[in-house]
């Protein structure tokens, strides 16, 4: 089953209080290589099939519902063809890399 993934981030120029709190926490842990952390949102929309019409709909929803253009940007919209397999493959390649 394909999944459409939409990622939304707070606008770069706006204060991200959540990210700021995490940045401070990392500094307390001595992880001072992290100069800034920003936190966004990821929407995973499971669909039976991906068509141009559905993608256009999701693009519209990303702009109108998933994000508020005053404070957020839609940074990516992608399609994962077989979500379970992709996630598993990502996990194993990450494990191999480590």
């Amino acid at each position, binding site marked *: 089953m394909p999944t459409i993934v939409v990622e939304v981030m*707070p606008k770069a120029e*706006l*204060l991200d*209080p*959540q990210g700021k*709190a995490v940045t401070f926490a990392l500094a307390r842990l001595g992880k001072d290589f992290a100069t800034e952390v920003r936190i966004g949102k990821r929407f995973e929309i499971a669909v039976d099939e991906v068509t141009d019409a559905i993608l256009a709909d999701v693009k519209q929803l990303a702009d109108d*519902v*998933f994000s*508020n253009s*005053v*404070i957020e940007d839609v940074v990516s919209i992608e399609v994962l063809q077989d979500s379970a397999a992709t996630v598993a493959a990502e996990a194993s390649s990450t494990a191999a890399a480590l």
Partner: protein
Amino acid sequence: MATGMRIGVVTFPGSLDDRDAQRAVRLAGGEPVALWHGSHDLDGVEAIILPGGFSYGDYLRAGAIASLSPIMSEVVDAANKGMPVLGICNGFQMLAEARLIPGAHTRNAHQQFIRRDQRLRVENADTAWTNGFEQGQEITIPLKNADGRFIADAETVKRIEGQGQVAFRYLGVNPNGSFDDIAGVSNERGNVVGLMPHPEHATEPGFGPDTALAMSSGVDGLTFFTSVIRKALVA
């Protein structure tokens, strides 16, 4: 004093202050009408209040899911035709999400929920909900919010400042990091007003903020509701 003006108060899943808003309408001499988020029926009301609370647990963004409710299509239509609409706290967030007023809200700059009696300056005493105030009048009403930081891009802030759409400004402290100390804004026409603090909690002696005269005696919020009734009488 009782005019019987019918003022609707919409209840959403997670509304907290709908009953307080109804009570404020009654104390101002109006007739509160309970409206339901899932309906398309405004029940013939002459004004609408979107009350405070945490509709849908602030999921997605504060006020975002409520702004997509069935009744909001009627609220938006009525507002665009000139019906007075007041959004308080979560209702302010809904107005912004529904694009009835400019700007948006994010988490308080200091990340914490805040509750205090807040001083405000009335920056525009010419809207449907503020015409009973003096221009520049200082009032005190309770504030309680988590996502109360009003934000808009620089161009929008400049435009609404220039057009008198800033209805209220925080005095003393800026409690949440809002741009330009903005506590409340209106649409261009002045029939739609949204603000973060809660006028409905300062409408009856004994249950409001402290004043120099006596504890809990502040009723500055009552003027919001008498303003809209007065406006209707004049018109």
